């Protein structure tokens, strides 16, 4: 690396043109299939996840219409089973996790000053695999083969004896697709965050959003294998008559619950931690100070990631458990409130000691804190075994987890949408519509879910398609259903705002919020190569600290896609790495994965056919192109120079 002391205004249009020629997507439909640009893929993740969010919302609204009065006839029991299973499955597997992955894949490279993610081809493949999984399950649903055993598909209900047909098989394979996509994205985000940061961005300067995405990714790596293993066992029990969950042959139905919840509880934090990252990222812009307690926030995120793996049995308090187990998991469940509480106090301190500007992103952030705290309070209540046994499988639980997920995932996500929309599109969302969006959603959430606490206390069970008049649950259910309408209308306002602002929104400029972090150093929207030169940072708020002049490093290739790798701890420049560029093969490999798993639902021939096709496609995917220039080689330190051949 050559140090130079030049100071210059960098107006080098030919550099931008050269880089754009190398990095930009190919034109037309083929460009859509071949892109490996993290921004294009991440936008697709978010848009696809949002479509699934709308579908799940329609399912929820239909269920609320059914439950709005006693003995209603909109949905029959079988259809209702499919609706609540699809709603939960969609929200968890096709919306919440993929949307947070999409946000991470979009922002992490921009926040760390990189030109793309690590492994861009794998990134493209992950998206296609996710899409295939979503299309598969909705294809089944639209032909009346939607899964109907609940989003956690408990055995033996989901086993071959009680769920004949292909409904649960489709569900199990959809799980496999989404797990593959999530695991690929997790490895990509971790590698990008640890190896592709701008010079100077040592671990203690990493933006909190990046930390949250990294912890989310580590959690995915240790949680998703559990549900993938469980769904593999379930699929095999159903398709080739293994006996994992068949008690008559030495299997165990509770094995499913352990494997599922070992994934399922961390899943809550996989969705929620990026939400906390979003809040910590936008607070400085709207309080005009750096976030309070950076070390405490980062350590809280990491602690939550660890503790989240010690809570899964609290979903199983109604199963036979040893008393010591109950006590341990009660304590662990209460313990997780501590790091989450620390985060909330840090946010309050930031707002309190700053100069808050109540724009829509901040409103959603504050709404998130209020709703999540309410969900957290009921969480502490049901961490207690005696209380949990009273309300287990009632609407109290439905109220609790909707407060947690809406407060911890949906509100931060909307805050993030309003905050980063200018960066993604170059235009601002309407502030007036944004406030309508916020207040309708805030009121709608309470109107829908608060009455459910009472309904649960009164004993109304989950997953019933109707109830009798004499139960007295009609009024509160009607309030909840009207609340759902209000939430629905808030989402319509949001959609209208997005559609209108895409064409008519105010032009944003590079940094409309006068924000502190690197994604705002480049244009809005960011060019195909993100940054023409690599930014150099010397603190946690690079744009506030660098004034009008951003220090940069030059020297990356202009004639091919090349990225800078830096060291893990201190982000010192270490090496350069060539990216393969845009290619169709990730899409084709994803198709072969689709053929493999979907054929397996119907025939064991999926195994040899899918394997052979996959191997052929992967060979083409990986086959090298000719290098552009002679490599500069640096051998491992363990190799004595005398041994290196000339």
């Amino acid at each position, binding site marked *: *690396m050559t140090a130079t002391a030049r100071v210059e205004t960098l107006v080098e249009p030919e550099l931008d043109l050269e880089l754009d020629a190398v990095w930009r997507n190919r034109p037309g439909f083929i460009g859509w299939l071949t892109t490996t640009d993290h921004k294009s893929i991440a936008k697709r993740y978010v848009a696809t996840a949002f479509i699934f969010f709308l579908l799940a919302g329609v399912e929820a609204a239909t269920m609320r219409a059914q439950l709005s009065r006693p003995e209603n006839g909109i949905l029959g029991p079988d259809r209702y089973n499919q609706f609540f299973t699809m709603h939960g499955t969609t929200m968890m597997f096709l919306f919440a996790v993929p949307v947070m992955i999409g946000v991470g894949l979009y922002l992490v490279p921009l926040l760390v000053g990189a030109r793309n993610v690590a492994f861009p081809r794998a990134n493209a493949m992950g998206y296609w695999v996710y899409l295939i999984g979503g299309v598969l399950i909705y294809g089944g649903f639209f032909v009346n083969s939607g899964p109907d055993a609940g989003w956690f598909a408990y055995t033996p209900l989901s086993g071959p004896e009680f769920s004949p047909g292909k409904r649960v098989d489709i569900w199990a394979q959809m799980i496999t697709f989404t797990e593959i996509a999530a695991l690929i994205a997790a490895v990509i985000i971790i590698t990008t965050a640890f190896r592709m940061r701008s010079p100077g961005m040592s671990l203690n300067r990493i933006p909190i959003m990046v930390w949250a995405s990294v912890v989310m990714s580590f959690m995915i790596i240790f949680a998703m294998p559990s549900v993938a293993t469980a769904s593999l066992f379930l699929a*095999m029990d159903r398709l080739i008559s293994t006996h994992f969950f068949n008690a008559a042959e030495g299997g165990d139905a509770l094995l499913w619950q352990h494997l599922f919840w070992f994934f399922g509880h961390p899943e809550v934090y996989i969705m929620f931690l990026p939400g906390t990252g979003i809040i910590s990222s936008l607070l400085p812009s709207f309080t005009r100070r750096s976030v309070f307690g950076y070390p405490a926030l980062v350590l809280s995120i990491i602690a939550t990631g660890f503790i989240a793996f010690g809570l899964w049995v609290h979903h199983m308090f109604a199963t036979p458990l040893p008393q010591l187990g109950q006590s341990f998991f009660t304590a662990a469940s209460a313990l997780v409130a501590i790091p989450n509480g620390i985060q909330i106090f840090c946010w309050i301190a930031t707002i309190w000691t700053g100069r808050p500007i109540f724009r829509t992103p901040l409103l959603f952030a504050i709404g998130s804190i209020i709703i999540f705290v309410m969900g957290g309070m009921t969480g502490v209540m049901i961490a207690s075994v005696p209380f949990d046994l009273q309300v287990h499988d009632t609407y109290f639980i439905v109220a609790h987890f909707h407060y947690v997920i809406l407060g911890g995932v949906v509100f931060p996500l909307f805050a993030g949408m309003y905050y980063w929309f200018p960066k993604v599109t170059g235009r601002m969302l309407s502030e007036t519509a944004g406030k309508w969006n916020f207040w309708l959603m805030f009121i709608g959430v309470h109107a829908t879910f608060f009455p459910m606490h009472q309904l649960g206390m009164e004993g109304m069970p989950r997953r019933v398609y109707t109830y009798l008049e004499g139960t007295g649950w009609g009024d509160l259910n009607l309030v909840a259903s009207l609340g759902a309408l209000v939430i629905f209308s808030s989402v319509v306002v949001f959609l209208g705002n997005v559609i209108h602002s895409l064409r008519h929104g105010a032009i944003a400029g590079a940094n409309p919020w006068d924000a502190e972090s690197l994604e705002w150093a480049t244009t809005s929207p960011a060019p195909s190569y993100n940054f023409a030169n690599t930014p*150099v940072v010397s603190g946690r708020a690079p744009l506030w600290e660098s004034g009008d002049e951003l220090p940069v*490093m030059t020297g990356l290739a202009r004639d091919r896609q090349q990225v800078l790798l830096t060291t893990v701890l201190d982000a010192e420049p270490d090496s350069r790495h060539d990216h393969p560029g845009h290619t169709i093969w990730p899409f084709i490999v994803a198709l072969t994965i689709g053929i493999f798993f979907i054929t397996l639902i119907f025939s064991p021939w999926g195994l040899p056919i899918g394997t052979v096709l996959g191997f052929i496609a992967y060979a083409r995917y990986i086959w090298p192109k*000719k290098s552009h220039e002679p490599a500069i*080689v640096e*051998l491992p330190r363990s190799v004595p120079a005398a041994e290196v051949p000339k």
Partner: protein
Amino acid sequence: MRRERIVADVSQLPTVVYGMRNLVSWGTTGFMIIEGFSLGLCAVTYVYLRKNTAVWPPHGTQLPQLLVPTINLAVMVLSLPLALWTKHRAERMERGATRVGLVLSSIVAVVVFGLRLAEFASLHTQWNSSAYGSIAWTILGFQGTLILIDMYDTIGITAIMFLRPESKWYPEVADNALYWIFTVASWIPLYFLIYFGPRWL
């Protein structure tokens, strides 16, 4: 528009580096963790299911045979020096020796995979006979897919090193050898679980 101040030039940084300095190694390591953890969950399932029957393996099931699995384990363990040797040759960018190591590694992977297929008969149970059979077959098959993937990778990178032997592929050869070491290491505890679990648990 924000001005930029050039403080350094990175054009002389290396483009071929080894170990965890190499980006691809991060991907390989990530998937080794994921696969290793998944195998660990299968092992936990094996132990969890053990409690459901009074005897293990269940009544009417013979103990697994040890001959073929033990031969395969021996081949795998004995192949470790070859993997390390290939890794070291690749780290020194010795084209001829690296190619020899890769060809031998490919042969070993094919032999191990063939023996793995033969191992299924040694279990003396079917996947659909009992939960014991189900988990034993699954562990054997799941770990076998790692061997299959490594076999595919090794043959592929051998072809690349003969047809397009550029310097950037040497770190990948070293990575591939590391993956084989992981494949063997992940199998050793599972071998004892599957073949000695029925005798000791």
